[in-house]
């Protein structure tokens, strides 16, 4: 019988980390205790709970992690609520990898990078950030601008403070939407924070977050002098097959699952605004 990508494999949840009040990060391996498949930063996997549903999630761990994959998932619907109820040892199903991923071995190579993330939008970028940190020699400097509603909503806060902030060649700027006791960092929305920081125009930008944040941040970047062709984002639409056949995640003639989820803004500018 022919190989069928729509038939998933069994994955085991070996660790669950409560990142924020509504985001948990799940560590997943195969039944043999090893990674289920290899991936490129920015690629996704279909996770499912039989009887509940299946959904596309970006793989938040870096491919340089040889032991397991991680998924940071926000509780916002039926399937994600079920995933949040899981205990360690629970089996789920997994298939992938899907999508194009970020061009870490081509267009991004040798570049100074600027990551801009809002809320759970850090999840797909974390894979690239840790990949680049592990392969420093191939990339220039890294600037990370990350913001969330509150201090408690910053995903991967411990990793950001303990690891990213202590990494030579990595500059981290954090912000939260409103003032909060115990927070002495920046307060304000990401788009205006980015404009204030006025990052170096030579950087290649990777941006992910809520659609409204992406829209205003992109406007701000353009005002600063960034070109659409140097800004990448990663998209999320409803998906069923993840291989460009079920027909629902298209933006114009491109399927987000297969031709994306990573697009450059000059590519998106040529497509209908249906996302």
């Amino acid at each position: 019988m022919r190989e069928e990508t729509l038939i998933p494999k069994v994955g085991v949840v070996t660790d669950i980390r409560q990142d924020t009040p509504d985001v948990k990060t799940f560590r997943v391996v195969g039944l043999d205790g090893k990674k289920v498949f290899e991936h490129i930063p920015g690629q996704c996997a279909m996770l499912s709970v039989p009887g509940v549903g299946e959904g596309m999630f970006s793989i938040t761990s870096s491919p340089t992690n040889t032991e397991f994959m991680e998924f940071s998932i926000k509780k916002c619907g039926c399937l994600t609520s079920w995933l949040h109820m899981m205990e360690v040892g629970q089996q789920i199903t997994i298939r992938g990898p899907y999508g194009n991923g970020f061009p870490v071995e081509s267009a991004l190579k040798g570049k100074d990078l600027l990551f801009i993330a809002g809320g759970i939008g850090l999840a797909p970028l974390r894979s690239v950030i840790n990949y680049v940190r592990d392969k420093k020699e191939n990339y220039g400097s890294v600037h990370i601008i990350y913001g969330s509603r509150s201090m408690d909503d910053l995903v991967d806060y411990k990793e950001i403070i303990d690891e990213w902030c202590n990494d030579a060649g990595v500059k981290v700027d954090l912000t939260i939407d409103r003032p909060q006791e115990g927070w002495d960092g920046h307060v304000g929305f990401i788009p205006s924070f980015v404009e204030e920081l006025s990052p170096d125009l030579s950087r290649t930008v990777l941006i992910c977050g809520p659609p409204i944040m992406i829209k205003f941040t992109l406007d701000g970047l353009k005002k600063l002098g960034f070109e659409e062709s140097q800004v990448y984002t990663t998209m999320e639409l409803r998906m069923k097959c993840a291989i460009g056949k079920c027909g629902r995640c298209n933006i114009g003639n491109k399927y987000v699952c297969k031709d994306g989820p990573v697009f450059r803004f000059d590519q998106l500018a040529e497509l209908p605004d249906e996302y």
Partner: protein
Amino acid sequence: MKKISIDRLNELFAAIAASKALYMPVDDGKNGAKYSKWSEGTEYSKAANTKRSAKDFFFPQVEDMAEFNVNGKEIEIIDTREECEEFVVFGVRACDAKSFEILDSVYLVDPVDSYYASRREHGIIMTMACNKPTDTCFCSAFGIDASNPMGDISCWMNDSDLLLSANTEKGQALLDSINILDEADDNAADDTKAAIKAILEKLPLFGLSTEGMKGKTLMEVFNSDKWAELSESCLGCGTCTFVCPTCQCYDIRDYDTGHGVMRYRCWDSCMYSDFTLCAHGNTRTTQLQRFRQRFMHKLVYYPENNGGVFGCVGCGRCLRSCPISMNIVKVMKTLEG
């Protein structure tokens, strides 16, 4: 070319059915036809076409994909796929035969859809030239010749004989296996073809052209102000997508079988409001957007991705079944103007 007298059609059907499951259009008693499995006594319908398309043979409305046994925290995945039986579909019209090529370029590109591929590999298509094309037919707009249908074996019927000509190895092997066929001249079907062509030229939609769609960019068509008027009365019932031979969108769902979970897929429709509904919102909230998506897919997106081939074969089923009489012909004409 081979031939057999039309008085002996049942002998031919029996010969095919001896080794393979045989399906063909049969009158449904409601002024139409539907594909049915042939058995002794089944009568082949001469209706212009079946109400439902022939896509069901390769892309059924509902099919099981895999089964899950859930036991506490453990999951067992059972591959429920079975080897497909050999089958023959007789009487497929030229439009429906072309629709398989359109489905192929979705399902047979990497990663291949094994469910679809297995049925395609095990199915033999015997097409039938359209002796009586109707006033809802417009296959010629898409370069399809109703007098010369493709498939594994092409057939023509005249007053005395059924003529058969193989186009593929699979078709040739089937013809070779039937020993009741007589030899016919290679031009034996020419009169029938000419008669059909004469009818086609008189059909009301014969002059329909795709030229108006060419030379326009994707964004020009998408941003046309005509979509509001075109979609205004669309009910979003999805009938057009279900009768359409080239509509291939599907949903994947699970159901509790009582002793496990069966994952199945079923036809879905871009005309439905929950088609693109995510936990965080919906990218197509209006019927205008959903209506535009369907026709942009057939007339712009699919051609962009497939070397200019349109995602419509002009079978006319949507013209006959839409409750508000909206259809792709009106869309093409309006966009052209």
